[in-house]
């Protein structure tokens, strides 16, 4: 297998799914009508509701959904089960489930006056559903900051060529905010300066790597250690330098969570977009050309299939259901439904734009996930981030960039995209906390208090567990949100007397799969940490964290069952053509 064949298969599958399935659903079931007024036109306020060209919206939707998820998930899954199951799930998932959710959620919002997913769940199912949805979102965010914090601290600690780029990114982000919003500088000039400086720092990274490695070694002489349990059952320490870099990540994210968006979070995100875009375009180009120019760099070296159950140390990692939560974005992601409803859905000029924007962006995101899969498949060995970066380095080498600098760019792009998501997740956690606790406990409304609480929760999750379990529980929360979004779509189709089968069957598959996956994650934590390490000195943190994550995994399932039960009752009501009862709150 080589990169070109994989890309050609993916493009053919996308074409067939879009032309013969997506367009058919759009024309025969949803019946998108360019003459119907969209919320963007009906409620135009020049801000949230504003008709926008579909090409612009396609770019906006793609940028909003394509972040760290499609990259990290594909890397983790390919390492666990091999590249073939990952590739198949990406292709099948996006063709029959992924685009269905993004597009249908967008159309549902368009036909429901631009309501958000939580507001629709409040109206279609019950007020309780909305509250459970919010809890889902908080847990999703908590697990994402935990998993990403773990990943970031690990990468910054073990890859001394990366930190310079990240520090310069933070400074360049602040400057970009100042230049754009205060000095009113031209966007193109600002982009050239800040992106150029960040790229320069990334490429200088390998030159000063030995100094950073020396700094890490000096930190580690302090001997501060917290132990955690690996997926293999091995007990390993988080070193002092790891904790230092975790602190750097927390400070970076704290700034993103507390400063005004224009001052820091948005410009950092903007710079990250360009670094990532250049890496993706260069990487994809290299992946295609490698077949002709440097065949060795295009040949898969990762095993195609490693086995069905890849669990070690008493843990279970069966392909079903765990693959389907490990690869979330790229195949399907619940978060997309949130963005599709409150972001893009309110800007659609014509209903007929929903298909190229919603489904088109989802198919494109799959290609990003595929790039990550290709990169790790050709690199073949090494831990996730390292294998990805080395694979990208090989692709960039094909188009003329030295492999060392290519790998540095791959690492930096990976870390930048992960850290930008982490800071925004922390920001949104404090918003959710303020909403929940603000009325009962006034200090929760203070942005610093909310952020500190969120950061402490993040540190607890990071220091108490392994990345794989955190990622899979995050995937469980994310994919369950997708199942619940598809549940809402099914109910909406029933309400409007349309055939719901194209949304119902994917929903049922994802619902059952995610509930099973969460139970397995809870069992894995019990079997590998609680059962074996309970009461052992030095492992209190790991045991406490494993207990907390078991509670989270079980909570997700119970909440999903509650929503499922409420949705079943709503289904009966809607099928009978009755209106929803008046909200009790």
């Amino acid at each position, binding site marked *: 297998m080589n990169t070109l064949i994989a890309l050609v298969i993916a493009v053919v599958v996308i074409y067939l799914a879009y032309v013969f399935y997506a367009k058919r659903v759009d024309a025969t079931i949803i019946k998108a009508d360019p003459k119907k007024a969209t919320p963007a036109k009906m409620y135009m306020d020049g801000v949230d509701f504003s008709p926008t060209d579909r*090409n612009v919206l396609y770019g906006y939707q793609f940028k909003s959904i394509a972040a760290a998820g499609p990259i990290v998930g594909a890397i983790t899954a390919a390492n666990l089960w091999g590249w073939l199951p990952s590739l198949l799930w990406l292709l099948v998932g996006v063709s029959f489930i992924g685009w269905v959710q993004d597009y249908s959620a967008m159309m549902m919002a368009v036909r429901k006056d631009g309501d958000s997913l939580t507001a629709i769940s409040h109206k279609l199912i019950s007020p309780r559903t909305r509250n459970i949805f919010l809890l889902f979102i908080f847990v999703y965010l908590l697990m994402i900051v935990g998993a990403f914090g773990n990943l970031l601290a690990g990468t910054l600690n073990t890859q001394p060529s990366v930190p310079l780029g990240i520090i310069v990114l933070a400074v360049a982000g602040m400057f970009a905010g100042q230049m754009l919003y205060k000095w009113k500088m031209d966007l193109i000039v600002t982009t050239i300066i800040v992106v150029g400086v960040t790229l320069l720092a990334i490429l200088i990274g390998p030159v000063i790597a030995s100094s950073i490695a020396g700094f890490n070694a000096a930190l580690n002489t302090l001997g501060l250690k917290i132990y955690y349990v690996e997926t293999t059952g091995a007990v390993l320490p988080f070193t002092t330098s790891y904790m230092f870099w975790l602190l750097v990540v927390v400070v970076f994210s704290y700034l993103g969570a507390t400063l005004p968006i224009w001052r820091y979070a948005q410009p950092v995100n903007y710079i990250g977009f360009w670094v990532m875009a250049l890496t993706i375009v260069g990487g994809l180009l290299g992946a295609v050309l490698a077949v002709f120019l440097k065949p060795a760099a295009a040949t898969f070296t990762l095993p195609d299939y490693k086995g069905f159950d890849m669990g070690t140390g008493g843990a279970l990692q069966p392909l079903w259901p765990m693959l389907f939560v490990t690869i979330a*974005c790229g195949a399907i992601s619940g978060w997309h439904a949130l963005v599709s409803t409150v972001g893009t859905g309110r800007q659609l000029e014509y209903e007929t734009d929903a298909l190229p924007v919603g489904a088109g962006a989802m198919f494109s995101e799959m290609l990003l996930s595929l790039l990550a899969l290709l990169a790790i498949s050709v690199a073949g060995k090494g831990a996730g981030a390292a294998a990805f970066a080395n694979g990208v380095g090989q692709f960039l080498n094909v188009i003329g960039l030295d492999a060392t600098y290519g790998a540095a760019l791959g690492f930096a792009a990976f870390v930048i995209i992960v850290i930008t998501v982490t800071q*925004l997740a922390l920001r949104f956690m404090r918003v959710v906390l303020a909403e929940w606790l603000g009325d009962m406990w006034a200090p929760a409304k203070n942005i610093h208090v909310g952020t500190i609480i969120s950061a402490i929760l993040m540190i607890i999750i990071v220091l108490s567990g392994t990345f794989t379990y955190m990622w899979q529980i995050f995937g469980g929360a994310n994919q369950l949100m997708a199942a619940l979004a598809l549940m809402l779509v099914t109910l909406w189709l029933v309400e409007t007397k349309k055939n719901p089968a194209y949304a119902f069957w994917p929903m049922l598959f994802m619902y059952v799969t995610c509930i099973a996956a969460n139970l397995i994650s809870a069992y894995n934590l019990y079997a590998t940490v609680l059962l074996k390490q309970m009461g052992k000195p030095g492992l209190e943190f790991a045991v406490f964290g494993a207990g907390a994550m078991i509670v989270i995994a079980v909570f997700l399932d119970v909440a999903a069952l509650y929503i499922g039960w409420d949705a079943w009752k709503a289904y009966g009501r809607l099928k009978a053509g009755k209106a929803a009862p008046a909200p009790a709150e």
Partner: protein
Amino acid sequence: MQIGIELVRNRIACALEAFRQVLYGAGAHEIVLYTVRLRANMENLFILVTLGDLIGVPILPPYYSLRLLPYLVPQVSSWKRRVLRERDILDADGLDLLA
């Protein structure tokens, strides 16, 4: 022949324009949206200060409100839509940056 060349030229121009728009959407649209949101927030405050009477908040003496009326009336309908719309937690700033 001339028509064929013209057609190809038009197609290329359309493709380049579409690419430019996609790039703008991915790179700059959220910045523009945020700037518009900032301006709208300022506008909300300004209209509240000048036409607060509309919702029972008499802040400026009516004389000054009357002087400003011709400038503000065109914005009142979109202002009312903005401030009266029921908001959900998912409407918080920054959600669109996070995915």
